[in-house]
């Protein structure tokens, strides 16, 4: 596993909101199932002293850190305040920050990520589903029922498309080490390069499935920075130029970041690329045979 395990104490910011409350319930149900610590504290300014599913809520991250051993957090705070939440957590010394929030203005994200980097912490997202290491830890909103433990790492810019691929893998008997959604925004904290570097140092992960989409060239950067066996899939081959395809970052602009050129560059780097999600399990098996 990467970024966390059963011993990781998780904090949730935006704990008393509809999303925060709902997902604290699900995260802790999963934690109970696998014997993990799960969410140990919540934060919502002005709501200190309340409880959500038995989890104590604090006014500030520092207050929560005084009472609990916390090394990771999940943010459900609305877009206008989410960048501030990232900085508050980085400042308080949390190592891994998962920002689920969508629609954060990109300038706010740039500042928050620069600030977090200065404080030496890793930001996953924003606009992401978080991560799940089967049998260990769930930090985010992924539906845990689809997952199975194994040694394939999955990195994706997407949410539901990731679940689709995980479902295909699980049905094919291929378990996962860690599945991580790095976010659909143009500026995100941990990129393919960072996550693949973690997978390289993770003895459990033997191969990686990389799920990318139109926009930018972070997928190619990731594939070029490693010798790990990878199978890739890129969504958006039918995406028209200059149109945002749902994700703020999913846009072909200035003739760059289109799916065909991404696929060509990945293939040039020696990475097999699936033309549809259902081909991925067989291609992963192919990797294991060849290595």
């Amino acid at each position, binding site marked *: 596993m990467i970024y966390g395990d059963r011993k990781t104490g998780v904090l949730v910011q935006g704990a008393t909101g509809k999303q925060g409350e709902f997902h604290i319930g699900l995260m802790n149900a999963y934690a109970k199932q696998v014997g993990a610590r799960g969410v140990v504290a919540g934060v919502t300014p002005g709501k200190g002293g309340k409880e959500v599913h038995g989890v104590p809520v604090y006014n500030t991250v520092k207050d929560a850190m005084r009472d609990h051993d916390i090394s990771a957090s999940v943010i459900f705070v609305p877009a206008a305040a989410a960048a501030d939440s990232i900085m508050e957590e980085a400042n308080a010394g949390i190592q891994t920050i998962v920002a689920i929030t969508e629609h954060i203005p990109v300038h706010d994200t740039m500042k928050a990520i*620069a600030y977090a980097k200065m404080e030496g912490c890793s930001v996953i997202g924003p606009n992401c589903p978080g991560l799940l290491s089967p049998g260990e830890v769930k930090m985010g909103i992924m539906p845990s029922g689809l997952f199975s433990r194994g040694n394939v790492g999955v990195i994706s810019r997407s*949410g539901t498309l990731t679940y689709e691929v995980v479902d295909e893998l699980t049905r094919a008997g291929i378990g996962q080490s860690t599945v991580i959604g790095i976010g659909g925004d143009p500026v995100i904290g941990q990129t393919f390069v960072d996550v693949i570097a973690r997978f390289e140092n993770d003895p459990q992960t033997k191969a990686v499935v990389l799920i990318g989409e139109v926009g930018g060239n972070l997928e190619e950067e990731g594939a070029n920075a490693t010798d790990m066996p990878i199978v890739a899939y890129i969504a958006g081959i039918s995406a028209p130029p200059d149109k945002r395809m749902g994700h703020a970052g999913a846009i072909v602009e200035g003739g760059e970041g289109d799916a065909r050129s991404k696929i060509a560059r990945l293939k040039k780097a020696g990475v097999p690329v699936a033309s549809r999600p259902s081909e991925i399990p067989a291609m992963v098996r192919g990797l294991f045979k060849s290595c």
Partner: protein
Amino acid sequence: MKLREYEAKKVIKEYGIPVPAGFLIRSADELPAHIAELGDKCVLKAQVDVGGRGKAGGILMADPTNAVATARELFGKKIKGLPVKEVLAEERLDIQHEYYLSITVDRSTKQPLILFTDAGGVDIEITAKEHPDAIRKVTANPLMRDIPPFLLRELVGTAPKEIGGIINKLYRVFLEKDALLAEINPLVTTTKGVFAADAKIIVDDNALTRQGFTVNRDLTDREREAEKYGFSYVELDGAIGVIGNGAGLTMSTLDLIEFYGGKAANFLDVGGGAESERVMHAVRLVASVPPVKVIVVNLLGGITKCDEVAKGIIDANIHQKVIVRLAGTNEAEGRAMLRAKGYEMLNTMDLVVKKAVEVAA
């Protein structure tokens, strides 16, 4: 959202970047009142929301004797299909040299990226390919309000020193106006100094409200309606309507349609946790596009509940065929509801898409 040239120029002028003398007109009759301000030669530039307008005939040269007639000609044109409703009338500069300056968001470094080149006025993408060494690039720390002087010197090189000040002013525009792109192409030197001959600003759609914009002009009417319901929607030109949850899954569904030889009519991501009413609006919205013959619904429920989706599809009550793939929370209930009403359901993405392509053919 893209600002029009006259809007972008107004913004950069407020930040102290010199722009040519000029004014906006909405008909040729408005020209004579102010034409004296433009001197003995002028340029008329159509303000249309489309790139490459110069090559498409959207920029015309004139002088005081023929300016009104030239403006009439421009107002009568369509530029890449768009009618000309606004024209920016400007003095024509005596250009000595053209430079290119832009600031964008760099995904790799997660910082603002500033590009400057002596080879301006032409297509920057071509320069980037043919003379990559001619382009100077630096990234700036987003936590700082100014670009440090040493970086400005690095960018400007042997070009006139005052350009350093202009770069920093444009950087302030970029930060304070929530821009994804701030570009001056060309930035020109004349005997009277340095001017921004053209300007382009794209504002982050996620920051439109705080920047004081109430509507996103880049969207079509149907895309705007979709936005009201919280959908991400893009119009395409095929006959297969698509509804999915999540941008990646929906894009992948579109790709699969192409893979099986069909053409999608749209991209519609209903978002997470959609309730029946939103699903109903999504189905009706997609069905309202005339060429749509069949609709693929591909929903993988995590937070989304399949029974809510089923109710939404049934309530929409449209005449086109709807082919459904539902998986996840309350799947059995959702399937039973749809089966009772005779809807076709298939178990995988590949199967629903294949079927829809057959129906549309």
